[in-house]
């Protein structure tokens, strides 16, 4: 296995000066010796559930009769719910996270999260969550802004077809999207080693070349920066995480594989501290299913992946360094629709997983009696959780990012 030291030794990183790819540049400076306190630097993994996760079938108020009444075909039967306390329980597919809570005190469930005047467009609401703002025009993400204040190395672990999220926009350097480390290389068709290096020299030189006079220099600049950043990191990334042996088996899903990739990068000790992973498919307008079915399978993918990831890292001694946070752009309508599914809604739960999160349930389940336009009403603003993550976990002042209004919610152990 390549160690951090090998990695730094094999690179000529510190000789690159101004053109150092930023996420590796800061790494070289930031990677502390393991004996120093900085080696315990916290890690945030954001898990985005795309499409609007049905919160009411994720954290279930099984005692409330309205629940079954609202959802004649998709309610999870009481005896199938994974009990958390006297009032609420988890969907059976979420049991792996329930077990993390019971056995390791490593899960926190925040109920009824949302924002005022919820927007029910997928895209607008997703932008609001990713930018942590309801301004009309949103161009920078909350994590991008956090990286401006504290430029930590970050990775977007991408699925095929997936573009970098708005949440990471605004960072000092474009956060690289990576799907597979072994694919992350520039292929060159050289006839010999010398021919290859001659070609690589040309490719790198033309990337850095002078500006042409016409057209859109900004866009060309953007291409150049992306290319410089990429070429200089490829060789090094390939060395990372070779021969990685997980301490616990990961489920066979693309989502779990992306989390495993995060574990590889964390274990390689290159100082990466921010990861962004998405899972799509939560827009369950029709044929959603109850205890089993479409939505159940999605939740099983989420819970199985996160649980394996946490247990793997925990076995490597990183359990207290990592915090996984899930969110979705909105929850879904309290009552099911005529297609055995649910339409776009609002307030929904978030999950935090890690050795240092406050174990248990935070906040009350949204009322099933008092709905707003048929939707669950939020009690906690999502920016209060962001504030906690920024201030208590990443050590970044949340005020310039979120404004003055949002007090950190108590979601971490003292």
């Amino acid at each position, binding site marked *: 296995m390549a160690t951090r030291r090998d990695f730094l030794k094999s690179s000529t990183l510190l000789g690159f000066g101004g053109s150092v790819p930023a996420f590796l540049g800061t790494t070289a400076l930031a990677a502390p010796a393991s004996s120093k306190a900085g080696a315990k630097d916290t890690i945030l993994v954001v898990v985005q559930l*795309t499409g609007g996760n049905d919160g009411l079938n994720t954290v279930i108020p099984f005692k409330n009769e309205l629940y079954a009444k609202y959802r004649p075909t998709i309610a999870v039967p009481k005896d199938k719910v994974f009990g958390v306390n006297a009032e609420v329980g988890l969907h059976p597919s979420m049991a792996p996270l329930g077990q993390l809570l019971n056995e390791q005190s490593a899960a926190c469930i925040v109920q009824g999260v949302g924002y005022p005047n919820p927007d*029910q467009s*997928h*895209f607008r609401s997703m932008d609001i969550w990713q930018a942590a703002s309801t301004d009309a025009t949103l161009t920078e993400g909350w994590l991008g802004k956090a990286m401006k204040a504290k430029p930590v190395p970050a990775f977007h672990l*991408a699925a*095929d*077809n*997936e*573009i*970098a999220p708005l949440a990471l926009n605004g960072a000092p350097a*474009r956060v*690289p*999207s*990576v799907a597979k480390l072994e*694919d*992350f*290389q*520039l*292929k*060159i*068709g050289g*006839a*010999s080693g*010398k*021919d290859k290096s*001659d*070609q690589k020299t*040309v*490719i790198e*030189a*033309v*990337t850095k*070349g*002078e*500006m*042409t006079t*016409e*057209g*859109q220099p*900004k*866009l*060309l600049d*953007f*291409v*150049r920066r*992306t*290319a410089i*950043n*990429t070429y200089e*990191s490829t060789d090094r990334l390939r060395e990372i995480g070779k021969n990685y042996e997980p301490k616990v088996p990961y489920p066979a899903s693309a989502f779990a594989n992306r989390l495993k990739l995060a574990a590889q990068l964390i274990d390689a000790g290159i100082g990466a501290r921010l990861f962004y992973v998405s899972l*799509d498919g939560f827009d369950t*307008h*029709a044929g959603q299913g109850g205890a089993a079915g479409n939505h159940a399978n999605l939740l099983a993918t989420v819970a199985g992946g996160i649980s394996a990831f946490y247990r793997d890292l925990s076995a490597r001694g990183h359990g207290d360094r990592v915090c996984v946070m899930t969110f979705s752009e909105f929850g879904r309508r309290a009552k099911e*629709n*005529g*297609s055995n*599914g649910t*339409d*776009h809604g609002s307030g929904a739960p978030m999950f935090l997983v890690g050795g240092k999160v406050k174990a248990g349930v935070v906040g009350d389940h949204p009322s099933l009696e008092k709905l707003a*336009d048929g939707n669950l009403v939020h009690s906690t603003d999502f920016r209060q959780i962001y504030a906690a993550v920024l201030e208590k976990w990443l050590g970044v002042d949340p005020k310039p990012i979120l404004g003055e209004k949002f007090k950190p919610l108590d979601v971490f152990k003292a």
Partner: protein
Amino acid sequence: MANDITTAWQAYTPTADNPWDAKKVGHLYRRAGFGASSAELDAGVKDGPEVTLDRMLNGGPADADFEQSSEFMASERSLPAGTPAVQLAAWWLYRMLRTPHPLREKLSLFWHNHFATSIVKVQNARYMLGQYRLVHRHALGNFRNLLQEMTLDPAMLIWLDAKESKRGKPNENYARELMELFTLGIGNYTEKDIREAAKAFTGYGIKQGKATFVEKEHDAGPKTVLGKTGDFAAKDVVDICLAQKACPRFLVTKLYHFLFSDAETPKAEFLQPLVRQYAESDFDTGKLVATMLRSDHFFSASVYRAKVKSPVEFAVGIVRVLEGNVGPLSLANSLEALGQVLFAPPSVKGWDGGPAWLNGQTLLFRQNLALALTSTEDARFGRRCDPAAVLSRYDRRTDEAAIAFFLRVFLQDDVSAEAREQLAGYANKSKATKYPPFWSADDVTKHRLRTLAHLTLTLPEFQLN
């Protein structure tokens, strides 16, 4: 002044300062189509703007062989309902590579992205093909007709759940996206409009591959949508949306981003002449596109290279320019890693496009695809797109002639002196390289020429459209 509102949309006429040249022909072919071959560039420069624009807007002479083989490949036997996305995408790529009317395919791509229906949910290649034919038929036609037919298109009925929507239990998905993404844009309707409109879309289903209307499942009662009240059915709500002031503006702005620039949206008054024309012509898309492409603004510096190539533009562009004959299935397969599978856009919003196409990963995959296409050593493409063969077809025998040729066809010579020197430097250095002893002199020459093509494609400028 090309960016002056009073003249921006007038027809471009060449001047001494702003002459008609290969750069403009290349620009037109990239935006309105998928790039120009060397012969097309030469013809465009020689024929002048009027003839070249007519050719682009009307398409070349119909090609019966092409349409026949396209039809044959689209038959139910060749593309049954269970065909995966990539095979369907290959069929469309074949059309993009061979069509005598690139603009129609390009606008079909625009509408495909606008209605952004994915086979991943529709799960029926025949329906997807049907939707392609619908957008292709109306690509340069009337948007009202396109939208009315789209509302009852089987793939769309599945994609946005209208098929499931019944009286008393309306599904809001189609009503929402009709307003948010197809006609008006956010801020021009309310949640209440959506809930009311959803009632009008109840009762539609699919029977034997065609839309049906089941009266007893339709909510025939009164609805209030965007200030109008009546016992509306689907068609009425679509017409109400089209009658909104926001609608032509929304569509013109989106088309502007597609044809002109990824960058910021121009001011409302700048687009106003186009918006007025589109509204007054009752959504004549062909007429709108003609005004846009003929305009002074289209050929201005602020629009030149103001877009990032989409993966399809990138790949099809290379093959068209090199006059290659690659298997479209191999090409379709390789586009997946670049982030664009035709018939499978990532969400209802379509592909984000612009700078979002490029990140570390996709840029590497683009460069690697450029190598695979030009090296002749990749099993997927073999020698079917050989830069050395194109050079000999055009009788370019020397290194200098080869560099000049590639820079002209791919970038119309608009590159820095540094890039030119680097390419010449490689040509020079590679003479001294020790090649494997079993390579013939011809092998060595061709390898060097193909490498020059690949290196040209790695220039950052080539990522821009």
